[in-house]
């Protein structure tokens, strides 16, 4: 059957990949693609800035495990996607980005809206393509999806010149993907598993460190079964939050710069770390030279390059987390670790997550606790980046994978709101919340128009401290209280802003208005809501390991 490349791509995505939704923004170079979309049943969400499209596709992917798709035009359209693609790359989420490019004959001539998209996105994609030959369109789109969703997942970009979109091709999808240089290894090596089981048996203070890879490979059930069999405490990374229910008796919170003190102490004192789907990022380990000095490390990861990159590993297991955990669980011997548990319980009692109370103003951590209470811990929590993110991570205890969505690696302010749009579209029956700061929310505030147009009741809770709180906190602690450019004394009236966008808005300035406002927001079903909560500017995130510091230099409060 003859059709245009644009039509073929749409048909392929719907029929072969089950894609139901695109997030995008039209423009000159993609006009034929949009023209093909006009007659299609594929739903398209019109964002108001391309960055929003990438984050929305990412939020869709993170909340479902499916591939998210975003579309943008050439030049500025493509460059506006860049932050979103980099965010997905750092957190290994599967998205496919389709960008328009100037006509094939105009490439390289500094044409209108021309930019070297493939060159720009090379370091932030798992792979990318410039599709110049229309006859390769179906092979490339098939490869793109395959690469995005297999192995260590990640973003793939296809840059398509305007004339290629409208070229006619025969619709014939290749039977299989043939990539000589891409063969992810899923099966764990049996010998490595036996060595791991032996180390586990010999260990006295074992700990499991679960990362985003556990969620990405849908290995949560296997993780819990494994942890229960060896009765071993589980700490997570920020990205691993939700891999085990946080009210599970084996769960000991998340480690890292703002992780629970007991989690950090536990990993630091352990004699064996069973790390699964983690990359030992600097925010998780603190000073890497002094990280967990007594521990041997078993590292299970799908990406061989992560093994030994940041920390030295004793038993590397390159495999899919789910399969490795299944197999490892079969061969490990049950154990009990009573002395170790006693120690951990002592830390948990001695250093619980807590926060300073202020009588005069609303305390942000308390807001998170109230949101948790009112949503019964069931909401999908998306965060922006900064203090809001850390407070949400600390005080919203999640129950399941894909329930906590945050930009962990790139730390992208402005991620939360568009990502929550993607998450809400994919999870119509669930409450989706964006925990925001007054700084972050302004970075993609234009997406209120998208959410309003789509009638998406995303709940935005702005923890409004009239400043860029995390940087302010560093300035207070390490820069002699010199608050350079972090105080946002002039800010929009979010209530009026919501109104202007056709959303609901409400201000909360007193603590006794809080619960009512949360309930009000949770009951809205036809449009986005902003609850602007004035919180104590001086509230800080603790515990804190100063950047580059060791876990034992942790500031408790």
């Amino acid at each position, binding site marked *: 059957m003859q059709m245009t490349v644009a039509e073929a791509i749409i048909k392929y995505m719907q029929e072969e990949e089950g894609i139901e939704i695109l997030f995008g923004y039209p423009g000159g170079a993609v006009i034929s693609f949009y023209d093909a979309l006009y007659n299609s049943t594929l739903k398209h969400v019109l964002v108001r800035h391309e960055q929003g499209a990438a984050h929305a596709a990412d939020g869709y992917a993170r909340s479902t495990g499916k591939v998210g798709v975003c579309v943008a035009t050439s030049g500025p359209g493509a460059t506006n996607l860049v932050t979103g693609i980099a965010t997905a790359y750092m957190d290994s989420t599967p998205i496919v980005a389709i960008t328009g490019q100037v006509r094939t004959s105009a490439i390289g001539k500094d044409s209108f809206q021309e930019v070297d998209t*493939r*060159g720009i996105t*090379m*370091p932030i994609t*798992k*792979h990318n393509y*410039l599709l110049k030959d229309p006859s390769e369109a179906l092979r490339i789109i098939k490869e793109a999806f395959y*690469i995005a969703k297999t192995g260590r997942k990640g973003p793939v970009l296809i840059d398509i010149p305007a004339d290629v979109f409208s070229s006619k091709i025969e619709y014939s999808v290749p039977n299989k993907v043939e*990539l*000589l*240089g*891409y063969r992810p290894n899923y099966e764990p090596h049996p010998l490595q598993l036996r060595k791991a089981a032996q180390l586990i048996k010999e260990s006295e203070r074992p700990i499991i460190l679960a990362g985003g890879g556990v969620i990405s490979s849908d290995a949560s059930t296997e993780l819990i079964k494994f942890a229960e069999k060896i009765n071993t405490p589980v700490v997570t990374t920020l990205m691993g939050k939700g891999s085990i229910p946080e009210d599970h008796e084996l769960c000991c919170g998340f480690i890292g710069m703002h992780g629970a003190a007991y989690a950090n102490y536990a990993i630091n004192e352990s004699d064996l770390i069973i790390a699964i789907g983690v990359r030992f990022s600097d925010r998780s380990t603190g000073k890497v030279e002094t990280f967990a000095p007594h521990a041997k490390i078993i590292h299970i990861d799908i*990406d*061989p*390059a992560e*093994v*030994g*990159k940041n920390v030295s590993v004793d038993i590397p297991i390159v495999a899919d987390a789910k399969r490795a955990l299944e197999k490892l669980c079969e061969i490990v011997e049950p154990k009990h670790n009573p002395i170790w548990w006693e120690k951990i319980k002592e830390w948990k009692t001695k250093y619980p997550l807590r926060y300073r109370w202020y009588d005069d103003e609303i305390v942000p951590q308390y807001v998170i606790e109230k949101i948790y209470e009112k949503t019964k811990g069931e909401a999908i929590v998306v965060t922006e980046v900064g203090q809001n993110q850390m407070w949400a991570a600390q005080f919203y205890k999640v129950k399941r994978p894909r329930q906590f969505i945050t930009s962990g690696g790139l730390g992208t302010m402005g991620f939360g709101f568009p990502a929550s749009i993607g998450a809400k579209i994919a999870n119509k029956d669930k409450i989706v919340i964006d925990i925001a700061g007054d700084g972050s929310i302004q970075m993609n505030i234009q997406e209120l128009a998208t959410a309003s147009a789509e009638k998406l009741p995303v709940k935005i809770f702005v923890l409004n401290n009239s400043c860029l709180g995390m940087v302010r906190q560093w300035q207070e602690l390490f820069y002699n209280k010199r608050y350079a450019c972090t105080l946002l004394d002039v800010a929009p009236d979010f209530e009026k802003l919501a109104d202007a966008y056709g959303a609901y808005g409400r201000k909360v300035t007193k603590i006794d208005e809080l619960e009512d406002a949360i309930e009000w927001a949770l009951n809205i079903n036809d449009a986005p809501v902003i609850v602007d909560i004035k919180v104590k500017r001086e509230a800080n995130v603790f515990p804190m390991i100063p950047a580059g510091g060791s876990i034992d230099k942790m500031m408790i409060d």
Partner: protein
Amino acid sequence: MQHTLSLIVENKPGVLARIAGLFSRRGYNIESLAVNTTETPNLSRITLVVNGDEKVLEQITKQAYKLIEVIKVNDFTGVPVVERELALIRVKSDASTRRAIIDLVEIFRASIVDVSDKDLIIEVTGDSEKIDAFKKNLEPYGIKEMVRTGKIVMERGLKL
């Protein structure tokens, strides 16, 4: 320590940019580079000389493997190989020095590929040390220009 890596890659547009980009953004310096097709039409071989300890090299190798178009990475460090570079050297030469230069060319099994009244172009192949030595011997006559390729290597057939 210097390592010679040989990458078999798919011969596709942009593949060299991917590798060069990977090396530069991860902070690995490329000392020498040679790229060309192989006996298989859709594959190219990239031979790289890089500096770094074992840990750095392990990361380079793994990161290179992550590129979809990289099929095979071989580290030839410590492996018996035939190693070649080619250099073209323009050296000053007149009637008074020509004979002496020709003697050197013969000793090094190089060849003169261009002659003028003021200079000669000499072609020499060999491993890095040989080319360095040849260059040093020519220096007293005055080297006006030198072009040198990246290193290429091939593993020896006989394991001794």
